Each structure stands twice: as C-alpha cells, then as structure tokens.
C-alpha cells in the first residue's frame, strides 16, 4: 500500500539510484533520517533538517533548518538528487516549488504502528536501491519479541504531557504519535475525550486516573528537572505526580517512529509496568 503510494508520486518510474555518481540525498525528518541510516545510506546524505539528531554524526552535516519550514533554495543549494521527507515536512508550497524545480521528492507517510513502519522502510529501501531485507527482518523480529514479552492483563494507564508551560498542561489525545507509542507498548492512554495535543484541564486530569505521567526529556528539563516538573500546580495534585511516577525519554527516540521504535516501546513498557522486560537484541542503528 505504502509502496504504491510512493510509486504513485510519479518520481520513481526509474530506480532513482541508477546514477553514474553516488546520488546525494537531502533529508527532512528525524525518523526518516534514522531509516536511511539503518538502510546503510548514511554516506549519501548531503543535508538534514534540525530534527535529525540520531545518529549524532548527522548533526555535522549541512542543516536545512526545521523540517516544517524548509526553504526551496536552501534545499537546492546542496545540489541534492532527491529529497526524502517525513509526512509533516513542508510547507507544501516549498515542496511544490522543489517539485517544479525538478527535484524528485520521496515522502514517507505517517507511521503509527509496526506494520506501517516496516512497510515504510521496505518501500524506502526498494525505491532507493538499498536492500531493505536485513533491516526489515531485524525490526520484524524486534516487534514480534516485543509482542510476546508484553504481559497480558490490565495495562498501565498513562498521561502523555507534551509540555506543561505556563497554563494548562498540553496532553496528547487520540491520533497522536504519543497515543500510537502507548498502543505499541500496550499502555492505556487515559485521554479519550479529544484528538491531538490540547491544553488539558488540571481538574479533569485528576479524574483520569493515570498511573504514570510520560513527558519528553526537554520539556522536563525546561521546567528544571523531574521534581520541579511534577511540582507544578497543574500537576502536583495528581497521584502519579505525588508518587513521582514520571517517565521521561528523548522525544526523537520515543516519538520519532523509526527503526528504534520497538526498543523505545520496550523501554517504556518496562518502566511503566515496573517489571524489567527482557532486552531486545542490540541493533547497529540504536
């Protein structure tokens, strides 16, 4: 399905990598950059956006700025042979300009589960002429192992806080990457009342019965560390906050949906269930 969507973008009539010289790939999207590196294409990447933070070597490459605020000339100035971008990269007008300038664009659709992730990496590998099989086999094994190690029984209930700045905490409802990760780790997202990231009423938060709070590392750091984060008035009354049950994780690792996602889900499930789950195998892309 995803392969077909990629092919339908009209760019891939011929294998893109059938170049005389090694093609140069510009990348927009942290998870996408991880996929390319896992496929062994790191050496071809000529520029990345600011969300491509893993592997850290990528940060030494020319920067395209933030993935949602790409500049057509900026991308073209790297003389790439193609732009591989995440579904949220843009703005659309810039993508249109790039397309009009003759740059092949390869979009990776929104991924929210194991199947989607494997399909996306397969499609990318096939499109770019890199054999996806080893990566895909390893990832499928990781997801299968994750699936068997997650105990059945009532899942832990968690509340994902994107940030808790000045006002009401911004918590993730349905259809978010956080909700998708919770599903992957068999954790119950306590917010079902709304979609997307929205300010959550601190009073309503009290009634949701979350066992755990989950937040990205840098949001927690921005408030001065875990104890200061939990001491905020919007959160302090929550039983999870009082018990100090806050799980923080690097946001690209946790929400990036790339080859590391099975490991990220395993780590979170392990922490929130309070039982050390067996480790997943070490992979070169971790």
């Amino acid at each position, binding site marked *: 399905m995803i392969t077909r969507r990629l092919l339908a973008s009209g760019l891939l009539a011929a294998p893109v990598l059938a170049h005389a010289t090694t093609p140069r790939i510009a990348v927009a999207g942290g998870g996408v950059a991880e996929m390319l590196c896992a496929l062994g294409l790191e050496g071809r990447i000529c520029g990345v956006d*600011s*969300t491509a933070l893993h592997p850290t070597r990528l940060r030494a490459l020319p920067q395209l700025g*933030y993935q*949602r*605020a790409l500049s057509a000339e900026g991308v073209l100035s790297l003389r790439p042979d193609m732009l591989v971008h995440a579904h949220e990269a843009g703005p659309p007008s810039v993508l249109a300009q790039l397309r009009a300038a003759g740059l092949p664009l390869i979009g990776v659709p929104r991924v929210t589960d194991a199947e989607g992730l494997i399909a996306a990496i397969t499609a990318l590998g096939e499109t770019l002429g890199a054999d996806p099989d080893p990566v895909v086999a390893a990832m499928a094994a990781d997801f299968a192992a994750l699936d068997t190690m997650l105990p059945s029984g009532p899942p832990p209930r968690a509340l994902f806080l*994107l*940030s808790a*700045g*000045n*006002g*009401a905490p*911004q918590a993730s*409802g349905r259809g978010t990457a956080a909700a998708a990760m919770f599903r992957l780790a068999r954790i119950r997202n306590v*917010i079902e*009342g*709304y979609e997307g*990231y*929205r*300010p*959550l*009423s*601190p*009073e*309503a*938060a*009290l*009634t*949701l019965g979350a066992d755990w709070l989950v937040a*990205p590392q*840098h*949001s927690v*750091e*921005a*408030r*001065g*560390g875990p104890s*200061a984060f939990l*001491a*905020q*008035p*919007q959160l*302090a*009354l929550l039983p999870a906050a009082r018990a100090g049950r806050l799980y923080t994780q690097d*946001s690209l690792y946790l929400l990036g949906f790339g080859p590391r996602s099975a490991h990220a889900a395993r780590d979170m499930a392990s922490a929130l269930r309070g039982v050390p789950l067996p480790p997943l195998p070490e992979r070169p892309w971790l």
Partner: protein
Amino acid sequence: MTLWRLPLLAALTLMILALLLGVGAVPIPPWRVVGAVFGAGLGADGAIIWGLRLPRTLLAALAGAALGLSGAVMQGLFRNPLADPGLLGVSAGGAFGAVTMIVLLLPHVPAPLRPHAVAMAAFAGALLVTALVLLLALRERQVGVAGLLLAGIVLNAFAGAGTSAMIYAADDMQLRDVTFWTMGSAAGATWPVLGATLLAGLPLLLAAPLLARGLDALILGEREAASLGIRVEWLKWGAVGLVALAVGGAVAATGLIGFVGMVAPHLVRLAGGAGHRWVLPASALMGALLLAAADGLARTAVAPAELPIGLVTALLGAPVFLFLLLRSERATR
C-alpha cells in the same frame, strides 16, 4: 453621583466569584464547596478547591482587576476611550520577554529558577518596553501624551517584530507553548503566584483614589488641570509607572489577555457615568468579574480540555460589547 452603586457592584462580584468556585471540570455541588472552603471536607473536594480552583479564580479576578483599572486609567490619561495598557507596550513587551525565554534562554537558566523564568521574563519585558516608551516620549523633561502614543506605536511594532523573530526560530513544541501563552490562561495559579501578582498590582489599586481627582481634572486639558492644582507631570509618570507594574504582573502570571482592559471601563461608564471616582474602582471590580467568569467558562466549556482565557474574553466579549455600544448610541441619539 453614582457612588452608591459601588457596594452593589462589589457584592455582585463577590457573589459571582463564590458561585464560580462550584464550577469546573469536576462538578462539586455548592454545599460541598462551602464544606471544602471552610475546612470540613479536606478530601478530594478540598484539594481541588484549595489547590486549583480558588487560586485560579482569585488570580483571574486579580488580573482582571489590574487590567480593568489600568484600562480606565489609560483612557483617562489619553482622554481616549480606545486606549488600553497595550498602548504603552506593556503587553507587547511582556510577550517579547516570555517568548524569548521560551525559545532561546530557558536552557541557560539554572534549573531551580526555570519554573518561574517565563513569568519573570514577561514581567521584565513589560517593564523594559514601557520604560523605553517613557524615555522616547520625554521632551525637555516632560512627557507629552502624543509623544507617548507615538513611542508606544513604534515600540509595540518593534517588540512585535522581536516576538515574530523568536517564533520563527522556535520548534514545534516551543511554538505550542508560545501560542498558548499569547492566548492567556489562569491554570498556572498558585498561592505564591497570586501573592506576586498582588504585590505588582497593589500600588495601582491603592493609588486609584489619588489618581481619580487628577484624571477628572485632565478631561479639561493639561493646562486647565495644572491650574486646578494638579501636578500633571507627576500624574502621568505615576499613572504610566503603576499601570506598567500592575499589568506587567498580570501578564507575567496569566499571559496575554486582551479586551478586558478596554471593555471594563466602557461597561462601567454605561452603567454609571464617567466620573473617575466611580469609573476607577468600578472598572477594577468589573474587570475582576469579567475575567473570573471568562475563566469559569474556559475551564468548563470543552472539558476535559481547556480553552485559553484570552480566547474566551475576545470571542464572547466582543459581540456583547458591540451590542451594548450600539444600544447606548441609539439611546443617546
């Protein structure tokens, strides 16, 4: 004189504040609210009322009072019903400070200070920009009202551009924080925050009776006011300084909340004339009532999610205000 209406308005405001304590995402019936407030039910009700609802209701009321009173003072000072504290760059400066902190500076602030960093930056930005406006408006040791207005426009634009630059540099998550900050919220209320906001607003609240006579005289013109024994320069410096302090405090605690500062004095004048001895205290009460009510709506309308309070004030306030204005105009015709 309409001063006899003042206790009436005060009673009404207190009553609405009390009623609002029963309103929130978690329904608590009135008798249990009373129990929780007076310590009988220090269980879950007490935690919600004392930990969340009471401080935020009081913070909304206090910020509303500061904004309403400041609006009335500014309208008197500029002799223009469209004036509001934003003219002096308080809000734009506060926004610039807060956004700069969120996007650029937060990682460099020592961890223990970070929870208060955005509010402190907003306060500093508000005072700094207002001070610059005053300095720019200074001619031969006098502050002209026209100069104040022009300097305000220039610095508002400049602070706005600075804010835009920060927004441009922000990533997704910072952008969300920035967006919601600029729409205001009372959800961050705590007793210490309330105390700090009161400290910033108290000088203006206390000085209001002193300002009233001067502003009444100023209606006739600066020279005429001076001949009546008003120290006009002192009045201007005092009014601007105290307004910057009070609104800076409110902005720091709640983020940007438009509309209340401009509208509260209008409603008050519609209800009881234009004498400042009535308008100033009544605008403070009206501002408190409006903003506390708006916060009540913000925290219940889309529960379990929550609306930004500035969104509520503008969305509901604007049409009601327009209706009242049109009606009063028809009546005077």
